[in-house]
C-alpha cells in the first residue's frame, strides 16, 4: 500500500514532537510525564505503523494515540491513589461560608471578562500552576471534563468513582481553581490597576 510521502518516522520528532508535547502538557501539567508519554506515543505509532491508513492526517493519528495514553495515565493514577475521605468532603473551602451557608466575603469582581485569556501566556502558566495545586484526581477530573469535554459517565469509569462522588470532586475542583485564580491572577491584576 502506498504511504503518503511524509510518514518517515525519522522525521516525527522534529515534525510533531513539540505539538504533541504541548498537547500533553496542557493535560498532564508535568514535564517529565508529558515527555514520557510523547515518547511512548511515537513508539506505539512505530509499532502500529502498518495500520495507519492515511485516512486521517498523521498528526491526528498521533494525537489519537497520545490521548489514549493520557487517559491510561489518569486511570493508573486513580488506581494508585484512590480518593480519600478528604477528597470527598463537600465543602472544599469552608471559610468561604458562614454557619448559615452565606458567603463570608464572596467572590471578588474580576473586572471585565477578558475573552482572550486563553491566549495570554502568563495567565495560562498560572492556570497550570493552580491546577497542579489540586490533588491529582481532582485535576484529572477537571481536565477530562473541561479540557477533553468528556461526559461524566466516561470520567466515572476512568477514575473509578460514582457519579455522586464525581460531582463532589468537580465542585471542589472548580471552587478551588476559581479561588486560586482569583488570588494569584485577578486580584493582582486589578491591584495593578490594569
Amino acid at each position, binding site marked *: 500500500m502506498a504511504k503518503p510521502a511524509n510518514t518517515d518516522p525519522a522525521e516525527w520528532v522534529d515534525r510533531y514532537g513539540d505539538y504533541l508535547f*504541548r498537547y500533553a502538557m496542557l493535560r498532564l501539567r508535568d*514535564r517529565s510525564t508529558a515527555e514520557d508519554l510523547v515518547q511512548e506515543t511515537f513508539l506505539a505509532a512505530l*509499532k502500529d505503523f502498518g495500520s495507519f491508513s492515511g485516512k486521517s492526517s498523521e498528526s491526528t493519528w498521533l494525537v489519537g494515540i497520545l490521548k489514549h495514553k493520557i487517559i491510561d495515565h489518569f486511570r493508573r493514577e486513580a488506581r494508585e491513589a484512590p480518593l480519600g475521605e478528604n477528597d470527598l468532603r463537600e465543602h472544599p473551602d469552608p471559610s468561604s461560608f458562614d454557619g448559615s*451557608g452565606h458567603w463570608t466575603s464572596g467572590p471578588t469582581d474580576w473586572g471585565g471578562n477578558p475573552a482572550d485569556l*486563553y491566549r495570554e501566556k502568563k495567565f495560562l502558566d498560572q492556570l497550570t500552576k493552580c491546577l497542579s495545586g489540586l490533588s491529582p484526581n481532582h485535576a484529572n477530573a477537571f481536565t477530562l471534563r473541561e479540557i477533553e469535554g468528556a461526559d*461524566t459517565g466516561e470520567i466515572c469509569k476512568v477514575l473509578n468513582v460514582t457519579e455522586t462522588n464525581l*460531582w463532589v470532586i468537580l465542585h471542589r475542583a472548580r471552587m478551588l481553581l476559581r479561588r486560586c485564580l482569583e488570588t494569584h491572577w485577578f486580584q493582582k491584576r486589578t491591584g495593578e490597576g490594569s
Partner: protein
Amino acid sequence: MLSCKDVTKLLSESMDASLPIGKRIGVRLHLLICRFCARYERQLLLIRETVRRLAATEGIPGKTLSAEARERIRKSLATP
C-alpha cells in the same frame, strides 16, 4: 430556601447534568437576588470558556520538548 453554599454546589452540578426542575428554579431565583452567587457562576463559566478555547488551540504556547528528551526520543525511535 437554598443557601449560597447549596447554590455553588448546584451550579457546578448544572455544568455536568441538567438539574431537576425544582432545583433549577430555586437556583435561578437565588441568582436574581444574590450578586455573589451570580458572580460565582459567571466566573466558573469564564474559566470553562477559557479552558475550552485553549483546548481547541495547540495548547500552552511556547512549551517545547527539552533537548535531552528530544534526543532520547529520537534514539528510541532509531533503535526500537
